[in-house]
């Protein structure tokens, strides 16, 4: 295909008007007193637009952003994951790896039968698709807002259960998603079941 080059007029060939035009934009920003809409909250003290100090300051991403998947705890700080391995199954890049507890597995809370022995997510493999969050029947795994996952070695970026729980459990931003879905904070699915069972006559 042949692309026709438009002939520049002498005014355009001067270049100086274009340079001045660009400089006009720079100057407008330089003297702007209008606050930024994106990170205005953080910069109440500043009146002018400035460059964000990136690694120290971070973008406050909007609700629903798909960041790194972490494991959540309930309001009583118990693990929610029951090791059903659906996320492991659905994960397209096979980033998730769960070791089921076997017969003699440890459970942390009353009424629980099964919890993962080990839960690993390879953050280098994760593609942030959110399938794990979608498939989770216990609402235990959520894509939070962390988007810059860095490390010095590959091993360091395979997050284990403790790390995932710590990162997820402490981060109350997780519940933004809940709120969006109309679910109360720190939902405990098994509580109703246990209460019902305790109120019933025992026949066994």
């Amino acid at each position, binding site marked *: 295909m042949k692309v026709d080059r438009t002939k520049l007029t002498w005014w355009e060939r001067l270049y100086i008007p274009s340079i001045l035009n660009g400089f006009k934009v720079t100057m407008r920003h330089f003297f702007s007193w209008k606050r930024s809409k994106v990170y205005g909250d953080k910069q109440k003290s500043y009146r002018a637009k400035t460059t964000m100090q990136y690694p120290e300051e971070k973008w406050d991403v909007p609700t629903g952003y798909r960041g790194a998947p972490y494991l959540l705890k309930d309001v009583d700080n118990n693990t929610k994951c029951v090791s*059903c391995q659906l996320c492991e199954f659905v994960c397209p890049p096979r980033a998730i790896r769960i070791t089921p507890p076997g017969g003699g597995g440890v459970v942390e809370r009353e009424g629980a039968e099964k919890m993962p022995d080990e839960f690993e997510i390879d953050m280098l493999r994760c593609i942030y698709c959110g399938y794990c969050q979608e498939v989770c029947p216990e609402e235990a795994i959520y894509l939070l807002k962390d988007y810059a996952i860095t490390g010095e070695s590959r091993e360091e970026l395979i997050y284990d259960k403790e790390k995932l729980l710590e990162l997820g459990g402490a981060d109350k931003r997780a519940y933004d998603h809940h709120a969006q879905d109309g679910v109360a904070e720190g939902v405990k699915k098994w509580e109703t079941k246990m209460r019902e069972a305790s109120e019933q006559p025992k026949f*066994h």
Partner: protein
Amino acid sequence: MGANQAETPVKTVTVKVDGCTVEVPRTTPNWLGKQEPTTVLQACKHAGIEIPHYCYHPKLPVAGNCRMCLVHVGMPGRPGPDGKSPMNEDGSPKIFPMQLPYEPQTPRGVIGCATDIIPGMEIYASSPETRAMREAVLESLLINHPLDCPICDQAGECKLQEYSVDHGLAESRFAEVKVHKPKAVDLGPRITLDAERCVLCTRCIRFTADVASDDALGIVNRGNYSAIATYPGKAFDNNYTLNTVDICPVGALTSDDFRFQMRVWFLKETKSLCTGCGTGCNTVIGSRENRMYRYEPRQNDAVNSCWMCDAGRLDYKWIGRDDRLAKVRGPKGDTAWPSVLKAISNHLTKAGVGSVAIVASARQSNEELYLLNKLAKHFKAPTDSVPRDGEADQLLVARDRNPNITGARLTGITTKRVGSKLAAIAKGIASGKIKTLIVYGEDVTQHGIGVKLLGKLKTLIVSDILPSATTKNANYLLPGCAHAEKRGTFTNVKGRVQKFSKALEPPGDAIAEWEVLHELVHNVAGLDEFDSIEGLFNQMAFEVKAFKGAGLKWDSLGDKGADVKL
């Protein structure tokens, strides 16, 4: 039927399933193999349509209590006083869809598993009426179901899940509180019961009472509180308990061994055989990432029906043991296959007639035993195997605990009296006549050839899977494969030759014994070229008399094996 009409034996019956005319056998074998009138459920199966069912199992007596197989049927009318059946205007027999007696507008279902077919019957297997019945039954079954699929071991192979998707309602209309029953009840040493998940189909009760002859289970309490239980204080403990886990259509009965080990959808299924005894129960190995998780019985009516014993089922842990032999060892320490095979071949080529003895194992495949016997013939070497006897039971367990003792006999490794030549071999070693001993898969120090005698040998060639006193004393140690790591055939005590397939990769250097033996036999005795287990089997089937008599071919064995005359 009129007295003047001669009764002719009817072999097939014509019925209509979903509007298609199908001819089905008049009788079908029941759970004991006796011919009984074909039922609606079986007729639909012949027509290729599955009627959902929980309590019906082809190898158990019919109970008809789950109501899942309800179908709407239409019957030809009964003959009137004139002896003629009601007819349509076009001359075809009139069909009356079944309905409630005093509510003609309501269709009435029959349970497919216990209703015999009659000629001319119409089965509306997927009509809206039938679908409504299934929906209603499923809704009732799910009323008290805990829906704890995320932690249920049955999830993925659960009939309640499958039928709910295929025939159930999307949402429950049950607003009341569910009845909660005991969870994680220790029913016996190998079984855990979750009473909430149970649909009370009583398959487990019928199995243990009628098949395993141990009337251990029953239903206690009434109504919503009904639950499977054993007699108070008694454990559900016979050698066939784990079959109830297989036949449980839901996750009520779970195996302690497999509990919370792996979700079933990850398991790769490989057809294999049980090596626990001479019966050779057909199995399916469930494995993931080179780790074996479970055995399940595979139906073969000529051998094990749908069952296998607990002892055999749990006899797989040795396959993944950490101390598996994984390194080839020569006289100077660890080495590699090419050099060790060359050294052994050179040694055996120089060995004189009568200076070699072979102790093989009846845990090896037919092909391996055949190759060993080929080697033995070259040296006129005495060969034998090791007997392993236990007690037989009424159902499956055979007296002989070797999986392939018949194969060892047929290939000529051993005689009727297994192990009778071991003493002679020991004597030969003591007198110095036997200088080289080849041991495959047995610890001969346990069977009359002690460590001292082994020390008298010039060369001891051992192939095994797990370390033993014999492997410790070996000059050449060749790591072998478990049956789950190679292909081959076993011959069971009744003379059925059956295939097993490879599910796992062997550890380290280990390679299948038949490959090593093929190389050795080729170098020492000379053998026609073949490079596959199929070729080896077909050659063996041509040379071994019993196999030749049965006309065996690898391809003709199929999944269920073939009989040879003993």
